[in-house]
């Protein structure tokens, strides 16, 4: 039971949020029942509820007890329906939240249903609906009254339906009201949204039925997963969270549903993650295959190969979920930023960088897909071979690396190793007859890359270093153990894993690196790297240490099993965008690796 009060500045800790979503967009709901983030109609659309990035004028949907309260929260088992239970001195009530799934049936194009169920006594719940279109730039024009209100701006419209309200009224550009719920009574409200089409309204019973149908879908979906092993609960929650981050119309997966949650409170490292990164392709493919979600793998793989076509054999770093590679970065000066962390950015200029690691990620994803028994078309096979050819021609270039540093391009060791991964997997694919065979050329270049890394990027103390010119540890080099650079018994690999742990770990948490990256300020420990360390320890024969670390990391999730991008080792506060796909992908892959290493004799 937690007693949590929103800070005086109006912001809640990132850790306090839970996510609900429908495969097109997602809402973040605080422990106090306030929906503080919702972009409509899609993940990368402008926010309508954006209190997360501006407590004053971002927009919100509050559903919070009037009296002081204590709160517990959970997702229903195997489901993405969130249940928040409030206890006050006069009674208790449970709020069930879900973004409903309609399939092809007529209903609101996007819908968030919130059911309030009285459990004991009587609870008064305050309702505040304050939509702010276009990232808080536009106060809404609200029409209606009684139990239904409509806010609109240009081609966008949002409706609020309230059932069981004692009173609701429009006041200063927002709807305010109060629900009074006694034991055994049920009140409800729903937010419906439309873009460039009429709103579709629904009745109370229909909305509540859809909430239960949505719950059934999630339970059935999670039951389809095939993973059975240690940390099952964390793995299933990660799978459900990852599914929420999949943009269903295309199969792409966003890195996170939020923008500009800071890597340092008050700092400038605030980025927009509502896009799909090619870097994550191999981890996504691996995790979905290991969890048994083959339909999602198919959709993701088709999206990946179709989307990258526009630039192939050169690959973009990130793409919009609809496939558009144009993701220009701009700042939103009207928003004050999470706890004064400015600027708030939308778009991401990392798109213009050269990142050689993405080639290894993509070709490793192709290899995993083929190795799992999926066929690739002749066009895809030709494209994969051309990408390998491009790597042969370009691996010697300096790049921005996996961490998207904004300092001058450097010969990052992990980038070179990922080029080796690209060519090694291309050779393996050619051996299988899956892609055109130019393996003699690819193998020669792969050997040159390996020589480069072994001769110029190894240090007896640290293992493989960040770059030949940067003799320091870099947690991304843990991926060498994960992507079969050499066997787990290789002393150089073991030295690298130990070096990263010695140099970059703060307790169970691991920093990405400690050197310069061309940006001002500091950041928290990077959760993905912590899970990579678990994976690397498991693969280098340290099962016990890996399991111990995994236990610690699993205990660091928030109350509903979610992770952000980073964590402050001193305070335990979540930092960065939330929830973060890469953190959950790394958790799944680490758990499966551990399960495999446990079963090895």
């Amino acid at each position: 039971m937690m007693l949590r009060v929103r800070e005086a500045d109006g912001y809640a800790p990132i850790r306090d949020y839970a996510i609900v979503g429908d495969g097109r967009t997602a809402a973040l709901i605080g422990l106090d029942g306030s929906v503080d983030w919702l972009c409509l109609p899609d993940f990368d659309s402008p926010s309508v509820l954006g209190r997360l990035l501006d407590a004053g004028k971002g927009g919100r949907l509050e559903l919070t007890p009037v009296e002081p309260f204590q709160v517990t929260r959970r997702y229903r088992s195997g489901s993405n329906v969130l249940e928040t239970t409030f206890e006050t001195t006069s009674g208790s009530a449970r709020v069930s939240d879900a973004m409903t799934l309609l399939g092809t049936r007529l209903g609101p194009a996007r819908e968030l249903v919130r059911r309030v169920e009285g459990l004991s006594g009587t609870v008064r719940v305050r309702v505040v609906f304050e939509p702010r279109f276009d990232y808080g730039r536009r106060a809404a024009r609200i029409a209606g009254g009684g139990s239904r209100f409509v806010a609109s701006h240009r081609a966008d419209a949002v409706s609020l339906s309230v059932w069981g309200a004692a009173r609701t009224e429009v006041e200063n550009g927002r709807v305010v009201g109060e629900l009074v719920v006694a034991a055994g009574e049920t009140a409800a409200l729903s937010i419906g949204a439309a873009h460039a089409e009429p709103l579709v309204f629904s009745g109370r019973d229909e909305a509540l039925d859809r909430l239960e149908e949505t719950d059934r879908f999630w339970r059935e979906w999670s039951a389809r997963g095939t993973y059975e092993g240690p940390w099952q609960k964390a793995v299933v929650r990660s799978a459900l969270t990852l599914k929420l981050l999949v943009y269903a119309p295309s199969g792409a997966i966003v890195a996170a549903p939020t923008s500009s949650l800071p890597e340092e409170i008050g700092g400038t490292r605030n980025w927009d993650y509502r896009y799909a990164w090619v870097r994550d392709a191999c981890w996504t493919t691996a995790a979905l295959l290991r969890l048994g979600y083959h339909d999602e793998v198919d959709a993701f793989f088709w999206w990946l190969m179709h989307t990258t076509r526009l630039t192939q054999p050169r690959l973009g770093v990130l793409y919009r979920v609809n496939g558009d590679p144009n993701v220009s970065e701009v700042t939103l000066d009207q928003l004050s930023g999470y706890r004064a962390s400015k600027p708030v950015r939308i778009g991401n200029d990392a798109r213009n960088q050269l990142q050689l690691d993405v080639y290894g990620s993509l070709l490793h994803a192709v290899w995993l897909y083929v190795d799992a028994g999926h066929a690739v078309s002749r066009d895809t096979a030709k494209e994969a071979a051309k990408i390998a050819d491009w790597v042969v021609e370009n691996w010697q270039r300096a790049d921005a690396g996996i961490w998207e540093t904004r300092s001058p391009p450097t010969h990052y060791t992990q980038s070179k190793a990922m080029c080796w991964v690209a060519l090694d997997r291309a050779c393996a694919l050619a051996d299988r007859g899956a892609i055109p065979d130019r393996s003699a050329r690819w193998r020669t270049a792969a050997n040159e890359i390996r020589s480069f890394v072994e001769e110029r990027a190894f240090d007896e103390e640290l293992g493989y270093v960040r770059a030949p010119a940067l003799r320091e540890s870099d947690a991304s080099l843990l991926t060498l153990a994960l992507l079969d650079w050499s066997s787990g018994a290789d002393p150089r690999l073991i030295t690298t894993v130990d070096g990263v742990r010695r140099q970059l770990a703060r307790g169970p948490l691991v920093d990405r690196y400690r050197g310069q990256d061309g940006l001002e300020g500091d950041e928290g420990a990077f959760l993905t790297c912590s899970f990579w360390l678990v994976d690397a320890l498991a693969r280098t024969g340290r099962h016990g240490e890996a399991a111990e670390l995994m236990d610690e990391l699993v205990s660091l999730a928030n109350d509903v099993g979610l992770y952000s991008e980073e964590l402050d080792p001193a305070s335990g506060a979540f930092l960065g965008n939330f929830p973060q796909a890469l953190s959950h992908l790394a958790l799944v892959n680490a758990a499966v690796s551990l399960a495999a290493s446990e079963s090895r004799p």
Partner: protein
Amino acid sequence: MTLWGALAGGLVGTVLLSTTVRLAQEIGVTRMDIPLLLGTAFTENRSRANLIGYGVHFVNGLVFSLVYAGVFEATGRAGWLFGAGLGLVHGLFAGGVLVNVLLPALHPRMGTSWTDASATPLLEPPGFLLLNYGRHTVLVTLLGHVAYGTIVGAFAAGL
């Protein structure tokens, strides 16, 4: 004005339209892939989809040339310029409605704006004016259809 001329124009125009789009794909201007989009309505096998898709596209090209012939007949006018104008309208209709709205609604493997987490379509929806497949797709599509209309108009008018 001859019906056979319009049909012959439809055939040649479709060849030109297909070639224009394919060329644009090869030089990295668009991800628009007409045979793939049409063929995957029938099969998940990409190679087979390409074959079927080209077939369907050519049938469509011939059917549309008959529609053009009907317009020529009704207005009593035919010629390359009128055909080009019809091609422009045809291109806008194709990008704005036909491929943007109707194809996703009929296509069993294509996402739509209302596809939610309960489905896993294999093909991303094209978006308005097919812009999801690259910003220049609209230009390629319009150019191809104007060329198609020009040829159908010219052939129908007996060159």
